[in-house]
């Protein structure tokens, strides 16, 4: 799947035409059967991006290409896209209908895509088995009778029931406790192998992203700041923001405990983002060019390419610390 220059601005009421630039010109590629991780602070547009990829939120601008077909045209109508791509939400409780046995929630997808009710229910039972829930025991239950981990397993079953080729995971494990989180992550890994799936994995937990992803995309205030293979980004981050993010992970070693916060302050207001590089207000290396011009993300065509949108990597930018990071 290729996303080109996706934009979504939400108008703010009573501000005289101002808008929140939730996603501001994001482009990336997800390759077949890889896992692309998306990380960033809360409010940086990760979830809006996820919803745009399924046209649950209609993009203001930009285009989506899925498997060579332009989405939302005659080539690939939105309905057809939704057969191929599914989504798992963070809130496992609200993503299941409380008045419906979970088996029926899972069966709903195949049902609306033209299966007979009985067939759909058989598929649902099979999928529940695949995610490690006994369909006879759990199928007829209601969401409030299940634990968080079980509900999230049901949600995964629901997403997989329509046999998608790509699954968007919008912080699927953030609401779960650690032991359950590990189980669900392993389940996701196993399912990916079994069904040859492509994942788009959104999270704010860097360790989780590293565990699951092949490549990672870092977002800041609606823009992509860095994209590259997971190990390259984690070992040699190019963008100061990525470095700060990585440094903010809690250390497992008490002797290397971080005393000082690697990054301070809240992200700027997305209604009125800073000029030039959005990150310059919090960046240690910020200089005049950073305030004036938008940095461009380099080319990222190859699967191994690793680029960042930072003036320090652009010879022509006029920044004094070229290639410092």
């Amino acid at each position, binding site marked *: 799947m290729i996303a080109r220059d996706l934009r979504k601005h939400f108008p703010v009421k009573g501000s005289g035409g101002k808008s929140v630039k939730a996603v501001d010109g994001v482009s990336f590629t997800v390759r077949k059967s890889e896992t692309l991780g998306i990380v960033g602070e809360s409010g940086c547009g990760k979830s809006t991006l996820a*919803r745009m990829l*399924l046209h*649950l939120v209609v993009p203001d601008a930009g285009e989506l290409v899925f498997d060579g077909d332009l989405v939302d045209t005659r080539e690939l109508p939105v*309905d057809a896209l*939704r*057969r191929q*791509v*599914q*989504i798992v*939400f963070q*809130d496992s409780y*609200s*993503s*299941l*209908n*409380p*008045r*419906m*046995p979970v088996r029926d*929630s899972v069966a*709903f*997808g195949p049902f*609306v*895509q033209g299966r007979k009710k009985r067939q759909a229910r058989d598929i649902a039972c099979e999928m529940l088995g695949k995610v490690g829930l006994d369909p006879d025991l759990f199928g*007829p*239950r*209601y969401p*409030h*009778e299940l634990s968080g981990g079980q509900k999230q397993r049901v*949600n995964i079953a*629901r*997403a997989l029931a*329509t046999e998608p080729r790509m699954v968007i995971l919008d912080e699927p494990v953030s609401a779960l406790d650690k032991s359950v989180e590990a189980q669900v992550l392993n389940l996701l890994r196993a399912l990916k192998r079994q069904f040859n799936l492509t994942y788009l994995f959104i999270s704010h937990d860097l360790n989780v992203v590293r565990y699951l992803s092949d490549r990672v995309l870092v977002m800041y205030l609606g823009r992509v700041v860095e994209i590259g293979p997971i190990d390259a980004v984690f070992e040699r981050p190019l963008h100061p923001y990525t470095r700060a993010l990585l440094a903010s992970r809690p250390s497992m070693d008490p002797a290397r405990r971080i005393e000082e916060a690697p990054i301070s302050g809240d992200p700027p207001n997305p209604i009125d983002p800073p000029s030039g590089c959005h990150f310059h207000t919090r960046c240690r290396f910020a200089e005049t060019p950073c305030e004036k011009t938008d940095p461009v993300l380099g080319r990222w065509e190859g699967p191994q390419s690793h680029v960042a949108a930072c003036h320090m990597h652009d010879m022509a930018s006029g920044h004094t610390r070229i290639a410092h990071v």
Partner: protein
Amino acid sequence: MADAIVLDERQETYEEQALPATRVRGYWQSVFYRLRHDPVTLVFAAIVLLIVLAAVFAPLLAPFDPYKESIVGRLKPFGWRDHLLGTDELGRDMLSRLLFGGRVSLLMGVVPVLIASLIGGMLGVIGGFVGGRTNTAIMRTMDVFYAFPSVLLAVAIAGAMGGGMTNGMLALTLVFIPPMCRVAETATTQVRALDFIEAARASGAHAMTIIRYHVLGNVLGPVFIYASSLVSVSILLASGLSFLGLGVRPPLPDWGLMLSTLRQSIYVVPFVCALPGLAIFITSICCNLVSDGLRAAMDVRM
């Protein structure tokens, strides 16, 4: 001794609460299960049922013809010549009139609420689900009706259309549509914001399918509860309309109408005159309490 019984009961409920972990119940099964264990609601539901049955089988139960007048037998007290509950100002048997009056009053209580929940519920679900301008248009129109006190509105509509039972019911229906619509709209808006609607959209379902399978089930509960509480209001309003001469026309027996015509005789036979009021009071309070019990039983997150 009494303590021991209470203790036993508690143990019993503990055991039954432990069961759902292994036994799986459907939604309606669990509602009935909770209702069965709510004696207060059961008692009042039984009373409502009795009243309904009494009204339905009024021709079989009534000892006298409710329209048969008698000059000598006017305003007689309880028990006068087999008239168990006395007679009214035209010498008609009160018990028979109360039984037949229940038919009219209950009809006026249930039918407008039923029609209003259908129309109002539909408008509310559509408005809440579609949102935006459609919702604004529907809800602001409803707000116009809200501007009038409900009694006044009912009186005005019934007055404008002329009295009679059908017009009375129509007036009440119009009065109940806006609040019904608002309840449905609120419930729909809440449900629509949840992720499972988003997930249903993501699996390619169209709006009508989502409403049918995911919205209605979640909106039905609040609408049903609200409707059941409106029944008593409707009976009261209908009685009020009849009392004012805008609802049922005499000689048809109706509790509100009976109250109205008997009020001049309150000093002659006070207890007989209070009977229709008592009937209205008991029916509406029982409806309200049953509705409260249902509300508790239908709460899925209990």
